[in-house]
């Protein structure tokens, strides 16, 4: 099965009551790829993530991870190797930074009830290995200094990086990042980009939801555009950026006045828009 795509969503639909939030959305992620998922607010990006991770059960469609159908339960999805972060950060606020990462190790640890009560040698070994791995990951995302801080005391950007470390702790083959740079300044955004590249370099495939189109076009191998629950365009960043349907989806049919803004999106130069 090594030739199977890392992640494959086949015609996923999600209906809430009378609202069709997703309509036959497909997505394919090759091993070691970074795929971007963009679209206006309410396009269904997060709903799509929730369908992938088993938080929602899709009304129809299939999700395959490495060629195997994913179970419909979030806990089992994590065990199978799909991890995610959240648009609105969802750390465990009253636990320390290190403990948050250790929670990520949960599915990769084994401890008997008696052994963990009496702190036997097997327990000690497992616990030490988990802590070592957690510290490695904190080092990887650059949070080693604050491992004993409560996670709620971290600045915003650090909380996002901690969520990534926690997700990596589950040993995923695919990582889903929901707006990893929301609320970050340009330096932090650049650091996040480098971090995502480094994650990819460890062999993990990544799907990124972002509003910042410039960020997506310079980060991703392929980009999928969702609009109102439908897949609008899929292709390389160059193809997607030049597609008039994408511009229209974001801004409506462009009148002359917004031409400058259109320029910004289609050519990815944020500075140019207000400059001249």
């Amino acid at each position, binding site marked *: 099965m090594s030739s199977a795509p890392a992640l494959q969503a086949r015609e996923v639909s999600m209906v809430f009551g009378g609202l069709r939030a997703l309509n036959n959305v497909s997505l394919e992620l090759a091993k070691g790829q970074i795929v971007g998922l963009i679209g206006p607010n309410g396009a269904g990006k997060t709903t799509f993530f929730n369908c992938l991770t088993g938080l929602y059960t899709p009304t129809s469609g299939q999700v395959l991870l490495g060629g195997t159908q994913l179970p419909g339960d*979030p806990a089992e999805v*994590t065990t199978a190797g799909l991890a995610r972060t959240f648009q609105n950060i969802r750390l*465990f*606020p*009253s636990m320390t930074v290190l*403990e948050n990462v*250790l929670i990520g190790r949960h*599915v990769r640890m084994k401890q008997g009830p008696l052994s963990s009560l009496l702190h036997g040698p097997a327990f000690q070994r497992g616990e030490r290995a988990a802590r070592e791995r957690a510290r490695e990951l904190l080092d990887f995302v650059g949070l080693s200094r604050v491992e004993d801080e409560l996670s709620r005391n971290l600045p915003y950007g650090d909380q996002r990086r901690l969520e990534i470390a926690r997700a990596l702790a589950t040993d995923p083959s695919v990582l889903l990042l929901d707006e990893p740079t929301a609320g970050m300044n340009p330096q932090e955004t650049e650091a996040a980009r480098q971090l995502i590249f480094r994650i990819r370099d460890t062999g993990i495939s990544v799907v990124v939801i972002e509003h910042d189109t410039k960020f997506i076009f310079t980060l991703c191998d392929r980009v999928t555009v969702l609009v109102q629950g439908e897949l609008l365009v899929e292709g390389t960043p160059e193809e997607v950026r030049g597609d008039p349907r994408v511009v229209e989806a974001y801004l409506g049919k462009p009148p002359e006045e917004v031409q400058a803004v259109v320029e910004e999106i289609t050519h990815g130069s944020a500075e140019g828009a207000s400059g001249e």
Partner: protein
Amino acid sequence: MFATLMQQIANGIVFGALIALVALGYTMVYGIVQLINFAHGEVFMVGAFGGLATYTWVLPADVKQIWYVALPLMVLGGVVVSVLISLAMERIAYRPLRNAPRLAPLITALGVSVFLQEAVRLFYPNATSAQPFPATFITTPLVIGPVTVPASGILLVAVSIVLAILLQAYVNRSRMGRAMRATAQDPDTARLMGINPDRVIVVTFAIGAVLAGVGGVLYGVYINNIDNQIGFQNGVFAFTAAVLGGIGSIRGAVIGSFVIGLVKNLADVLLPGGTAYDYVWIFVLLIVVLVFAPQGLFGEAERVRA
């Protein structure tokens, strides 16, 4: 007077240790599922009856004479009964109501409490009146100056403290303990981290039941008399202790229990009304604490829930 005071302090510590074994169950379950399990006192009660039943029907006559064989087996019997009842209660009465408004499981808990009290009264032989409980422990009391403490009281204090420390270490330092805390803080995110909430909840109920079962049997050995009301009576104190200490907090439950044990026993001799006013003083204390520290003594000021 001094002798009386010292004696009451000693009695209070023993009573606090007993209450702590029950209060820990209240606080653990509340921490995870935000349910005040009013039937938890009955888990303690059936534990005591489980221990008595083990003594009466399981242990051979010669073993009954050897306390260090008999008592552990009685504790084991009591714990097994407590855990089975507690897990059945969670499975049958609470799990179907997991997503119901909070009032529903609360009222169910009251129903389960009455059900268990009456079930024991009706079906345990002769349990319509109090049953004598065998003193399967050293019967020579410990005498320190003016204070006399039964050996079974010392045992209660020792067991209670050791179990509380083990529990604290388990919750703070083990995989399942972390999963418990994560589930308490944000069950949905915990699920996304691969934590099975049903498992966590079952383990939580089981731990509470083990402590309550141990407490029930040791209570029998200490008081030498049990009936179907002991769960309710001690449950009220234990619940109050958990709230006083800050419900959800392990340390809070233990310290709250000792505070309640001491206040109850000192109030008996220092304040007017004697033992008849136990509940009055305990609840006055609870009200005063909650007015000034609504989260209790060790409760988290911000219980963050998604």
